[in-house]
């Protein structure tokens, strides 16, 4: 466990010293800030515009961070052969995989915290959101964190056996499909062919379902009259369990692949 933590800490340090990260966060904050301007263009619901745009920006930039930093780190470790010296230490391969993953989550968590603080500030600037909305930002961002943790596990898995460009492409592709896989199932049902229906149903469970994490949006955070949309804690817990299971699956697969790998 100490070794995993040491690797996680080093991974986090690597991202902190990487300029790309700051650029991404800066972009996200600029985008959240610009929602203030956009919010003024609408009538009456600037809070919701700010929240929708802000949560969207956190989600998208979080994904970029997860993909580029996640894949970049693992790839660099292999390509630049830093892994040779590391694996000659009393480090088991699964410890390396888990340490890297934890370090990436650490990075993601810090980034989301910064972006969430920016969003809360933007919301506070309008001064119209109910006090509870700030608290309800936490589960909303928490769900985004879960979805990004899942995306990171995908990125990690792909980068154990593929080039970074392909790994990034695969991850992004699955993230997009993962938002549409309820539609895949519906498409199967509408097709009328039992084979296509079974396929659609199977894909629904096999492809990571990123739709599961879209439980709380701007309306859910605001909870003001007219936008009321209750937060179901059980559904949130279900999404958490789903993320944990899928991540466990992906990490276990990464560990198995990584343990079998030759480092030429």
């Amino acid at each position, binding site marked *: 466990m100490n070794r995993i933590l040491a690797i996680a800490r080093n991974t986090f340090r690597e991202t902190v010293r*990487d300029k790309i990260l700051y650029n991404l966060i800066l972009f996200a904050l600029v985008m959240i800030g610009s929602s203030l301007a956009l919010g003024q263009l609408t009538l009456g619901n600037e809070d919701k515009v700010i929240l929708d745009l802000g949560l969207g920006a956190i989600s998208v930039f979080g994904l970029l961070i997860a993909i580029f930093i996640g894949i970049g780190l693992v790839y660099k470790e292999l390509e630049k052969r830093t892994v040779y*010296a590391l694996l*000659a230490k009393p480090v088991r391969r699964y410890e390396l995989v888990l340490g890297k993953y934890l370090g990436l989550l650490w990075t993601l968590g810090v980034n989301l915290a910064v972006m969430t603080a920016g969003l809360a500030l933007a919301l506070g600037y309008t001064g119209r959101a109910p006090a509870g909305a700030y608290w309800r930002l936490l589960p909303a961002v928490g769900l985004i964190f879960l979805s990004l943790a899942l995306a990171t596990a995908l990125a990690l898995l792909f980068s154990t056996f593929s080039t970074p460009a392909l790994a990034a492409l695969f991850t992004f592709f699955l993230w997009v499909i993962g938002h549409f896989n309820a539609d895949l199932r519906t498409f199967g049902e509408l097709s009328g062919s039992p084979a296509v229906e079974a396929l659609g149903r199977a894909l629904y469970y096999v492809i990571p379902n990123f739709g599961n994490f879209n439980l709380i949006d701007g309306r859910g955070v605001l909870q003001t009259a007219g936008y009321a949309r209750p937060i179901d804690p059980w559904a949130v817990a279900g999404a958490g369990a789903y993320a944990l299971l899928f991540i466990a699956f992906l990490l276990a697969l990464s560990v198995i692949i990584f343990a079998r790998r030759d480092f030429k």
Partner: protein
Amino acid sequence: MAVIEIENLTKDFAVGFWRKRPVRALDGLSLEVRAGEIFGFLGPNGAGKSTTLKLLMHLLSPTSGSARILGRPAGDTAMHERIGYLPENPYFYDYLTPRELLTFMGRLFGMGGAPLARKVRELVGEVGLAASADLQLRKFSKGMVQRLGIAQALINEPEVVFLDEPMSGLDPLGRMEVRRIVTGLRERGVTVFLSSHILPDVEAICDRVAILNRGRLQEAGTLEDILRARISGHEVILSGWTEGTLEAIRPWCSEVRAMGERLHLRADDREDLEAVLGFVFAHGLELVSVNPIRPSLEEYFQTLVVGK
């Protein structure tokens, strides 16, 4: 006592994109390295030296055969507590400073606190990086990275150290430093397994060597023994000679050269040598010297690589 036992170690790599075919990088290598010696692992580029070291570190898994270090299989991570490894052309996280890198590596051994800080300081000084201990590695030259690589291999005070081309990329002064560090390790009883193609360095510090070419072991033993087996004749130097001498000994010599007062002769086998020496003593000539002619390590290498 054997510290490293390699038995019939073989590694195939699959090459080719569509139709993978195996290429044998290492073919049935068997070796033993004894405790406390500096063992040189020699061979031209592509001979399989790095492959062997990676198999020993279990970065690669063997196609067949086995390797044991300190009596444990190569893949035993607990055994890794007691060894150190410098990869070929090492590269470390360039966003770290030497101090941070060594501290990180030390933590992987469960070290920490003041003892780790002390050990890091000591190592940084030992490899000559004290002045740049807090500079990020991205500013480092290849030689400085190489020194740091040696330092990280020693962080856990290992019993066995594996160094893959430790001299490469270093200037003559740096090579001297590394020689000094390696011989220092021997004094502390550490076993060193060192791969290199820089022969003078190997000749200077290794107790025993193994020579590898195209994945096969050519020879193992002390350099002395290996090269003595290849004595190709003797050089005899005389003085006080006459024209008659020249005529008389010419049949036994493959080469006769007059250099002022001295006469340089070359006798290819023992019979010829005895005949020459008999003539010298019988005719009261003055014998200056008799030296075996053995190839230099470079020459031996050349015959290895060109000859096959």
